[in-house]
């Protein structure tokens, strides 16, 4: 069965490594914070100027001066720090943030990503996404495998304006975990009960299926 958004987040959380600083985008990525594996320490960076981001505040303690990049009220953990936007993107551009998790409208087999603009529609802007994808050593895209029309979002080539080129290394969807290398999607894991054929049908870009593909463990 295809994963829920929560389960996508849960699977991505397994990619976290001890001592990593992590930037989580809006949407599914935000949920990753709920599934940090036991025994590892990670710290969340919010690009509006916050390191050591904690959970939402207890009702009544929310502070207008303490928000995340999604403009949600948050808390700061002991050992966290606050800084300006130039310092925040110095961290990102300087590759001090080990992992970026973000959503996408399209991902291509060459690692290109499009997630900020649909021509003809209202464009809200790229926010920090272009800085994040141009800089991070590890980028995981969290998204549905297909769009609302049922069309694949894992493409030969992006059709939408790009956010970044050749930068995505891993994609976790409701159907599969895929690695991008050598211009192709390499199938690593299937969602429980989802067949390779289903994944193949939902993937427009070149899909490499090498040997037996295990089911995800959640």
């Amino acid at each position: 069965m295809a994963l829920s958004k929560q389960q996508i987040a849960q699977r991505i959380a397994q990619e976290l490594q001890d001592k990593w600083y992590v930037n989580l985008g809006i949407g599914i990525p935000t949920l990753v914070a709920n599934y940090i594996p036991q025994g590892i320490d990670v710290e969340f960076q919010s690009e509006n100027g916050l390191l050591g981001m904690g959970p939402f505040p207890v009702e009544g303690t929310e502070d207008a001066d303490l928000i995340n990049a999604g403009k949600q009220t948050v808390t700061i953990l002991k050992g966290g720090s606050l800084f300006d936007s130039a310092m925040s993107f110095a961290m990102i551009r300087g590759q001090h943030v080990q992992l970026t998790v973000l959503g996408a409208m399209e991902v291509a087999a060459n690692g290109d990503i499009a997630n900020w603009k649909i021509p003809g529609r209202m464009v809200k802007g790229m926010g920090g996404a272009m800085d994040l994808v141009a800089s991070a050593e590890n980028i995981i895209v969290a998204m549905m495998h297909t769009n609302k029309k049922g069309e694949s979002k894992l493409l030969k080539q992006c059709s939408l304006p790009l956010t970044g080129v050749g930068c995505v290394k891993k994609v976790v969807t409701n159907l599969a975990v895929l690695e991008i290398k050598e211009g192709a999607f390499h199938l690593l894991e299937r969602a429980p009960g989802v067949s390779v054929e289903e994944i193949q049908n939902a993937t427009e870009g070149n899909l490499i299926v090498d040997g037996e593909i295990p089911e995800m463990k959640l």
Partner: protein
Amino acid sequence: MINKVVKNAKEALEGVENGMTFMLGGFGLCGIPENSISELVSLGITDLTCISNNAGVDDFGLGLLLQKRQIKKMISSYVGENDEFERQMLSGELEVDLIPQGTLAERCRATGAGIPAFFTPAGYGTEVAEGKETREFNGKMYVLEHAFDAQFAFVKAWKGDTAGNLIFKGTARNFNPMMAMAGKTTVVEVEELVEVGELDPNQIHTPGIFIQRIFQGKDYEKRIEQRTVTPKS
């Protein structure tokens, strides 16, 4: 010590004119210069270019200037949390220049720091890099980005002293310190204006040298855009 204090927003905004370029601090509605924005609305000046990470919401922040059609052009990283913005943009009344957030922040810093241009990886290979110089350094591609030129910067700080030294609070810091450095005239409004000597010189976020005018702000609403909480247990 050099005294930067002015009486109020009216005095602080002396010299603003139609057609000028302004920088305005804040991320979403967090840390925006509420008093200066109100005064700009009152003054009714138009054809403004506003450099600000966001564009406010319909009835708050820069949305107030948009409602009165005072803004000709927005330079931002993320906009459109408000309907009037969308209407003006789609109708072509409003020009919008969208810039990656880190590039926006660094361009503001560069402006204040006397750096006319720098290379950044953000936007390489995208339409953001179109028409710009690109170059490879250590096997990676970068885009050349330039400093801004802004007549006024409007900044909101938590505490400030009469010499213009500033301390920001929480994530209300965001773009404020770089914009404070970057304005030809930097106007600061503070929640608490104190005498020199009350702030620890080792803990000042923005030294007073960058500030031309500072005033005690009033009636802060500090609206929250997304109130997310966990229930009391």
